[in-house]
């Protein structure tokens, strides 16, 4: 059978050499691993760190690990974490000001950007990185630390065959198959008789990795089998976000649904903390006990805190209704005006990891549908 250019087949035992190759190329590897009852993103060094044979059951406000297809490397959907913590750490020092007699010394901490391979991130998370790029790398005020981390990050994306109940990436056009933006794309094909990976390099680094792996050109049937896994994922996804929300949510600013959702919302901020595109941060200035050193630190913030909208005289968004409305209208509506696209990539984390299970697809539909 004819082979397909640019597509390669690698067996599981051969792909396990990838971790050593990434190490040789000077990358530390972050990837999916089980911790605290969830699949999180952590440092991994081999296949024994992967959640092999494990799947996740997700619903609004609910996440459970279960036994999945035996031997499958990627039989699960996204966990609570994305690439965000790697590219913009939750807390990072920005500046230290030291008193030196009559003068002040300003010291910016050195940033150690370690070459990092993000292994096994999903197409929605890759899309989220591109959303954040527009804000933090390609806007009028690029964040040099984000840019440095992004430039030294290698992306091995894994296309999704087993979506969660909370996923809705087909409606945001951000998955379940990645089209671009990766160094290497991996699709797992696993059934009763076969288990292999179809690899597609998306950059020179990706080509080099494939060359170092034991591989062979993929034939048409193998590529079709890979495409069938993501097509099946599309079929399995039932949630969807209403299209073209730009202008429509803000127009419904006085809808009674905002009051209903505020009655359920804990204002805890979990949705914004797990969202892969949220980028708000707070800057904290403190001094030490001796009074001769001031420190400026940047931390993840959330539009659900009162401090986030604190202006002269108090918080502009003092009630939960206005804070939830801010989160949803910015994410789905005014993000278009600001950045020319939606701020939502359909990963469903805000639905799963909201303790009361508030579902933004349901809320958005109710608000723009007039319901």
């Amino acid at each position, binding site marked *: 059978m004819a082979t397909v250019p640019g597509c390669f087949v690698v067996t599981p035992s051969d792909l396990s050499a990838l971790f050593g190759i990434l190490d040789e190329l000077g990358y530390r590897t972050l990837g999916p691993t089980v*911790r*605290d*009852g*969830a699949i*999180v993103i952590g440092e991994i060094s081999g296949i024994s760190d992967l959640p092999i044979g494990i799947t996740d059951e997700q619903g609004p*406000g*609910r*996440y*459970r690990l279960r036994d999945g297809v035996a031997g499958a490397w990627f039989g699960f959907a996204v*966990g*609570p*974490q994305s690439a965000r*913590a790697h590219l913009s750490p*939750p*807390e990072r020092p920005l500046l230290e000001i030291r008193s030196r007699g009559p003068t002040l010394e300003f010291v910016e901490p050195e940033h150690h950007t370690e070459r990092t391979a993000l292994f096994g991130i999903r197409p929605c998370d890759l899309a989220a990185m591109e959303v954040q790029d527009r804000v933090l790398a390609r806007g009028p005020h690029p964040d040099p630390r984000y840019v440095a981390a992004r430039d030294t990050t290698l992306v091995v994306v894994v296309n999704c065959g087993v979506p969660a109940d909370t996923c809705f990436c087909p409606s945001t056009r951000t998955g379940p198959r990645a089209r671009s933006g990766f160094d290497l794309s991996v699709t797992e094909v696993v059934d009763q008789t076969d288990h292999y990976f179809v690899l597609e390099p998306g950059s020179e680094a990706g080509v080099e990795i494939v060359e170092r792996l034991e591989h062979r050109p993929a034939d048409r049937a193998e590529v079709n089998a890979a495409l069938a896994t993501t097509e099946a994922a599309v079929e399995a996804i039932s949630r969807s976000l209403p299209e073209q929300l730009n202008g429509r949510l803000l127009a419904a600013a006085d809808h009674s649904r905002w009051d209903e959702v*505020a*009655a*359920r*919302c*804990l*204002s*805890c*901020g*979990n949705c914004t*903390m*797990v969202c892969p595109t949220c980028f708000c941060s707070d800057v*904290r*200035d*403190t*001094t*030490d*006990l*001796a*009074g001769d050193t001031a420190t400026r630190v940047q*931390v*993840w*913030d*959330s539009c*659900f*805190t*009162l*401090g986030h909208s604190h202006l002269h005289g108090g918080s502009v968004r003092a009630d*939960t209704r206005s804070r939830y409305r801010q989160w949803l209208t910015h994410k789905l509506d005014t993000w278009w005006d600001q950045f020319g696209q939606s701020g939502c990539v359909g990963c469903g984390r805000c639905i*799963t*990891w*909201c*303790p*009361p299970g508030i579902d933004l697809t349901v809320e958005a539909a109710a608000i723009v549908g007039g319901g």
Partner: protein
Amino acid sequence: MNRPRLAVWKFSSCDGCQLTLLDCEDELLELAHRVDIAYFLEATRAHTEGPYDVSIVEGSITTSDDAERIRRVRAVSGKLVTIGACATAGGIQALRNAADIGDYLSAVYAAPEFISTLDRSTPISDHVDVDFELRGCPIDKGQLLELLSALLVGRRPDIARHSVCLDCKRAGNPCVMVATDTPCLGPVTQTGCGALCPSLDRGCFGCFGPAESVNMAAMVGQLRDRGLDDVGIHRLLNTFNTGAPAFGVES
């Protein structure tokens, strides 16, 4: 330059929050260099008379003598800051507020007639003006150092008022309510502990009291969904911060 004079006072409390100050081992020498520790009986019997630039107050008001004493402390203090759940919310001893004090006295003491106590345990701010309240049972060492550092240079302390959840997610924890159905007060509790309990697979006990924005009706529903009955919910909310209006269920 004269060093600011610091006093540390104890009312009804377990001393744990004062102990947090003594526990600042790496910073104690610097602190002693920066301030004149003029009154701190847990640390030293040596003390000097007021007035004091800064008074740190631990404990709640549970006797009429203490109600008088806190006024005298206020009168000799420049800044007065309170530390811990007792001083800021009345402490665990505020459980009496929803009970009959006579019942408690006869149940606990062999000779209750020798006990002179008020029927309520109240925070310091119910009695005198307080310049800053530092929450927690016990308080967090890092927050205490931040408060002292701020007082020394005359700036506002950087103490967050939002939920524990933000710091829990910053720490990389999967939510225990979602992943393991563990009842957790994190969403309604003020941060400050560094999400200690959820980081150890336990639910938050609410040691730092109510966060800036609390939706208790929704929180109670979530606790019920995760297996707590009315008695369990009542017990979870009525511990160290039972006296805090948003937490206490005085019924």
